[in-house]
């Protein structure tokens, strides 16, 4: 297969998800790279098939039928590579095959460290950034008894354990205690019963040798640099790299059928979230933007962000809310948010018990789809709450570390919160990207826009986009070979630019209905933001022009500085402009009927229901 970007013309990429394997064909056309055909098939990692390549071949077959391009070699009989490799003949074969994977629940890790808000949190960031689900984080100060920690590790059966603790040159005791716990638990790996469980040691470098002595007999051990070498700095890359290496050598290669799949591609298979993270990072850094991206699936919600830290450096973060989702995990959203928080987003009345029963039915029959508009709105209300909760989770972990070195003893490190600051600043956010069925496939793009505005409580002026067909994993792995092609396809075929949200923060004492700001596109007035109302305006579609938002009150904050005008050159995309005057945090009506009236008015103003 070819990997030289100059020679590539046709690339087939799959994402082997937990339930569906999605194959996309990328082709170089006279006007550049485009995504051209798509096929999908159920993922086949479970019995009776238990071979991921069967589902992948079914997805290839669909692409082949739709594109009329011969992709699978006629001579393929289950051995070697199945592809017809392009030999210059047009309409024949492919040049390269790539894949990402989250099948079998994705990469599942545990992290263990000394202090919850320090080494353990750094370890969590390293694991999440590598695309893992962190099943649990064990630390000396997590309030659990030793036997509870041991039982937890044993019960969860992680794919990989990341062991951290202590700054370099600091106390060795806590990290060695964490090693003791791990030793006592003796967890079995999820796949490959005869294998030793991979453990990555990324703690105090001076305790590495002793930890190695303790663990090497029972575990496949890799020692890397400390993720938290000092109190105020992190070094996550070596641990992330070790996670990727173990993912390929121990997790992927022992998952059903992956031994074959890994041989089909010259490029390592990436964990799906790591590929999405790749794309988010690349997009943010190449355009110098601060980006927030959420992928809301059936079982989990992933949140990715790139925000600049106090020193102006872009910092990438990813979190996964493992039990917040739209189908399998929908009842968890119900439990965490409560029915009243879901109902507040609806333009119709529904009892708590009806919400509970409907969502439980979605939980037990996750593949059903809403048929009535009211049922659709209920799912979209759940989405808002799942986004809100997962962003709360993300904000708690996406933190910057202060650059001031402070002399602290080991007794002080349990109260180190002062050295952390939140990175996510919605007022500074440039672009939000929504992904996952409920956002990407919302029948009306305004619905997707409103879900993101409400769920994330966006502030200031923010571009609203969605991933058209959940293409970011495919583009993330394509980046490894041909980043220019990935960029082109991302902008042209992946990112659907819905429009912009204008959501000022202002003094709550301003009376309802007061105009707060005026909005202009290329000098032409489009409308005003009014306190307490959500309105829609239309810009020309698919244009580049200047958007200007002029505050009408000195407390109106659109950019971090109250009273200051916001002005920028924008791409209008679908041209939808949503003018949100509900303030932040959103000022909710205290009385039920008024809450409902306002929600109905919003849906009417945005054209989501007929007046």
């Amino acid at each position, binding site marked *: 297969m070819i990997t030289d970007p100059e020679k590539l013309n046709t690339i087939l990429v799959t994402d082997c998800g937990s339930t569906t394997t999605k194959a996309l064909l990328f082709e170089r056309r006279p006007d550049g790279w485009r995504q051209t055909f798509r096929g999908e098939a159920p993922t086949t990692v479970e019995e009776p098939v238990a071979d991921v390549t069967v589902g992948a071949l079914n997805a290839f077959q669909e692409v082949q039928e739709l594109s009329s391009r011969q992709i699978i070699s006629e001579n393929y009989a289950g051995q070697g590579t199945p592809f017809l490799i392009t030999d210059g003949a047009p309409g024949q074969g492919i040049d390269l095959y790539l894949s990402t994977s989250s099948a079998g629940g994705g990469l599942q890790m545990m992290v263990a460290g000394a202090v919850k808000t320090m080494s353990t949190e750094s370890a969590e960031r390293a694991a999440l950034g590598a695309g893992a689900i962190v099943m649990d984080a064990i630390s000396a100060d997590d309030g659990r008894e030793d036997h509870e920690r041991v039982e937890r590790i044993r019960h969860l059966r992680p794919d990989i354990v990341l062991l951290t603790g202590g700054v370099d040159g600091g106390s*060795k005791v806590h990290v060695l205690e964490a090693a003791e716990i791990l030793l006592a638990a003796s967890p079995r790996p999820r796949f490959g019963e005869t294998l030793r469980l991979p453990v990555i040691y990324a703690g105090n470098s001076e305790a590495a040798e002793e930890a190695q002595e303790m663990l090497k007999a029972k575990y496949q051990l890799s020692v890397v640099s400390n993720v938290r070498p000092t109190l105020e700095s992190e070094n996550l890359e070596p641990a992330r790299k070790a996670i990727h290496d173990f993912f390929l050598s121990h997790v992927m290669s022992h998952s059903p059928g992956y031994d074959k799949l890994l041989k089909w591609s010259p490029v390592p298979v990436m964990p799906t979230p790591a590929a999405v993270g790749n794309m988010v990072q690349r997009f943010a850094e190449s355009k110098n933007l601060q980006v927030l991206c959420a992928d809301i699936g059936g079982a989990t919600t992933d949140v990715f962000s790139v925000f600049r830290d106090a020193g102006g450096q872009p910092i990438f973060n990813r979190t996964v809310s493992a039990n917040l989702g739209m189908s399998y995990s929908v009842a968890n959203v119900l439990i965490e948010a409560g029915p009243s928080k879901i109902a507040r987003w609806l333009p119709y009345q529904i009892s708590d018990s009806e919400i509970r*029963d409907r969502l439980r039915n979605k939980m*037990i029959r996750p593949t059903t789809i809403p048929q009535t508009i009211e049922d659709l709105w209920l799912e979209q209300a759940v989405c808002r709450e799942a986004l809100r909760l997962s962003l709360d989770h993300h904000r708690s972990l996406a933190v910057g570390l202060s650059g001031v070195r402070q002399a602290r003893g080991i007794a002080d490190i349990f109260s180190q919160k002062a050295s952390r600051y939140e990175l996510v600043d919605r007022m500074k956010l440039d672009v939000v990207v929504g992904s996952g069925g409920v956002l990407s496939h919302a029948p009306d793009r305004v619905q997707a826009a409103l879900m993101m505005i409400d769920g994330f409580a966006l502030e200031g002026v923010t571009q609203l986009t969605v991933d058209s067909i959940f293409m970011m994993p495919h583009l993330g792995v394509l980046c490894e070979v041909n980043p220019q092609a990935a960029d082109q396809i991302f902008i042209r075929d992946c990112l659907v630019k819905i429009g912009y949200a204008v959501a000022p923060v202002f003094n709550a004492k301003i009376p309802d209905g007061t105009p707060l700001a005026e909005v202009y596109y290329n000098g032409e007035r489009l409308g005003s933001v009014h306190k307490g109302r959500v309105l829609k305006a239309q810009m020309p579609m698919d244009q580049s022009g200047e958007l200007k938002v002029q505050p009408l009150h000195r407390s109106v904050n659109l950019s971090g500085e109250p009273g200051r005008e916001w002005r920028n050159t924008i791409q209008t995309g679908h041209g939808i402009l949503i003018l949100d005057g509900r303030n932040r945090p959103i000022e909710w009506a205290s009385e039920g009927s008024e809450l409902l009236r306002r929600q109905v008015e919003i849906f009417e103003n945005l054209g989501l229901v007929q007046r």
Partner: protein
Amino acid sequence: MKQAFTPGLCVSGGVTVRKDRELAVPGEILVREGDSVEPTQVVGRAQLQGELLILRLSEQLGIQPDEALQGLKVKLGDSVSSGQIICEHAGLFGLLKSRYLAPRDGTIEFITERTGHVGLRLPSKPIELKAYLGGKVISVTPARALRIEARCSMVQGIFGVGGEQHGQLQAIAAPSEALVDEMLPAVAEGKVLFGGHSPSEQFLKTAAERGAVGLITGSMDDKALKGYLGYDLGLALTGNENVTMSVIITEGFGSIAMSERAHKLLSSRAGQNASMTGATQVRAGAIRPEVLIIESGGAEKKGIAEGDGLQIGSKIRIIRVPYFGLRGEVVELPFEQTKIETGAYTRVLRARLEDGRVVTVPRANVEL
């Protein structure tokens, strides 16, 4: 052209069921290939490793790790009894001795020099594996697992709670009757009750108190489930709930009559013993709760849900609002995607409901 997958639950007699039974840890399988087993028979035994206690000697005695090591009265691999001295430290001038005593019986598994900690492994616990399904052992994996086969009547539910149970089937209500306490038998010891729909929390608790080991019904509301379990269930991953009566619903949450077909099949086996489990796993490789009643002889039939694709004339039930719980027959299967009320385009079918109405429904919202 790929065929759309339409899920369905098995409700059928004459089904050959094979069950894999596996010990959690290697142990001993007590039966041989070809043996006949009863549902409650113990077919495997193993010893589950005891939990490990970390004895923090230096912290507990207020001494340095090296002092703790010097005072150790045990060594690696020693068996110790509860109350036995693990460590003794002589304080000021050797006068004030402090001691650390073993909190439980166990074996010394590790001693860490750096921390002064000792690992005490508690004795292992015996675990037993029951057959669950009465039938013939068709294969044995030594020390680990076995497979049992039997010809059964089988009813799968959509959701359940509680683990494996075995009891005598007894009808308590017709499919469309809402369950009320008066329907419960005064003594329900060892019974698997079935029928009706919408039991209250109190009904469930009373049935369990009267000794019932299982209930199969049409539906229940979320509130009754929460009340019965004592907590809100977040994921449809069940089977380990701490309840004495397992519960299976055949239709879903809310107030929906029990499946006529399931009720009829169970009624035809009333008085016989059934194995059942509420274990449900709604993930890839879904596990649905089930009731199994062993049949003696008779011809093997194909499970109703197995292999039958969606076609004109297929009997369906609708599993989402606005027609949730209604049954009908497929009269048309349009090939093209159709716009539905939400504005989405999806593949649909048209079905004639039992009341004569012909309705359009997304194919994703029906079960066979």
